[in-house]
């Protein structure tokens, strides 16, 4: 039980991370990670949709035949995205304005449809919700890291404009890292996002390679050719 949820969590956060492993949802990822607050806004919205769609898909999974599953899933995702959009309009209107088209575009985020099809349609409700949460969290973490990276390099600040998301008191959270920083515009533009994502992925691959090497070192030696069968005689 516990191991199962641990596996779902690890997959979402690391082994099947939406952004760094599956490389899905690049469009919003590259477009809105100019600052931490934007990244967080979109990340939370995506996570919400992901949880909702996984829940809904899992609930109806026995009643949807294979042929119509895609339209049905898309419909569900579109509905939930619209809900999230309304919510954001209601509570964080300024952020909604900044994120603009990328909120409705969550519908087309492949990772959501991907999880609905690959996981939620085959698993019970609770694991599906957990999967949605963890996948969303994995995506959010990458968004945040990339947002922080680009904000620091592009503007020399961190956590600027947090009042958009957390109310007026959060306006003080902004950290100015350098005095008179010229601001590397490159990082704030989409090419910087590509580069940043590439670096994050590279870093993750380095970690993975290390982990794998360690796992391999601990593995028991294999016996060569132990799975051989005879090929002569009847093959049925």
């Amino acid at each position, binding site marked *: 039980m516990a191991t199962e949820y641990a596996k779902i969590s690890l997959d979402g956060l690391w082994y099947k991370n939406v952004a760094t492993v599956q490389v899905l949802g690049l469009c919003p990822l590259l477009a809105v990670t100019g600052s931490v607050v934007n990244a967080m806004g979109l990340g939370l919205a995506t996570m919400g949709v992901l949880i909702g769609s996984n829940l809904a898909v899992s609930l109806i999974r026995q009643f949807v035949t294979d*042929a*119509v599953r895609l339209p049905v899933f898309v*419909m569900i995702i579109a509905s939930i995205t619209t809900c999230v959009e309304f919510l954001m309009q209601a509570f964080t209107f300024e952020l909604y304005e900044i994120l603009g088209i990328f909120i409705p575009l969550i519908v087309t985020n492949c990772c959501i449809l991907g999880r609905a099809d690959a996981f939620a349609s085959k698993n019970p409700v609770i694991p599906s919700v957990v999967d949605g949460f963890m996948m969303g969290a994995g995506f959010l973490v990458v968004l945040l890291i990339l947002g922080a990276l680009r904000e620091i390099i592009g503007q020399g600040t961190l956590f600027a404009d947090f009042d958009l998301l957390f109310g007026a008191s959060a306006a003080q959270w902004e950290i100015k890292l350098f005095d008179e920083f010229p601001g590397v515009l490159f990082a704030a533009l989409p090419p910087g996002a590509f580069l940043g994502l590439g670096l994050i992925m590279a870093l993750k691959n380095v970690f993975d390679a290390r982990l794998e090497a360690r796992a391999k070192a601990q593995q028991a030696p*294999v016996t060569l050719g132990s*799975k*051989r*069968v*005879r090929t*002569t005689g009847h*093959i049925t």
Partner: protein
Amino acid sequence: MEIFIAIAAVLGMATIFGAVLGFIAIKFRVEGNPIVDQIDSILPQTQCGQCGYPGCRPYAEAMANNDEAINHCPPGGEATIQELAELLGVEVIPLDQEHGEEQELPSVAYIREDECIGCTKCIQACPVDAILGAAKLMHTVIVDECTGCDLCVEPCPVDCIDMLPVAIEQNTWTWDKPAGVGESSVERIPVTNIQEAS
């Protein structure tokens, strides 16, 4: 009112698209599985069974239908894994050592003919009928047809079959790949003058 329009629209679309989908699902059903032949043509056809399947074709079928791993073929080695990965659109993975090791050089079976007792056991074991002989008479391997699967070695009661690497001769020799960037491709050969030596 708005909500009804939305529902009607959605239901209408659902009906139309459902009908289209249903029609397509029946009309364009994919029959057969030609991928098996393609996979089979990549496999080296040694029929050695090291993959855990009785022959290359069963392994090809298992890969096509049951998602069997592509790294179970030691005779094909890295090259085969790469081709399979390309064909099936999966990642290249290292050879599974549990199925055996890739050999540097291909080898073929040789029967030490004066030790052979003519038991025909190896003939029965050979998947490609590359061993010639009759009961109580000496057997021999048709070298050109031997796939080097070594299935005949184990059944031999007198242990007279050797797997020997295929010798490189002038007509099968090819140039080595140069050592690559940063290396000089010069090979130094110590020469012994035959006249001096003798």
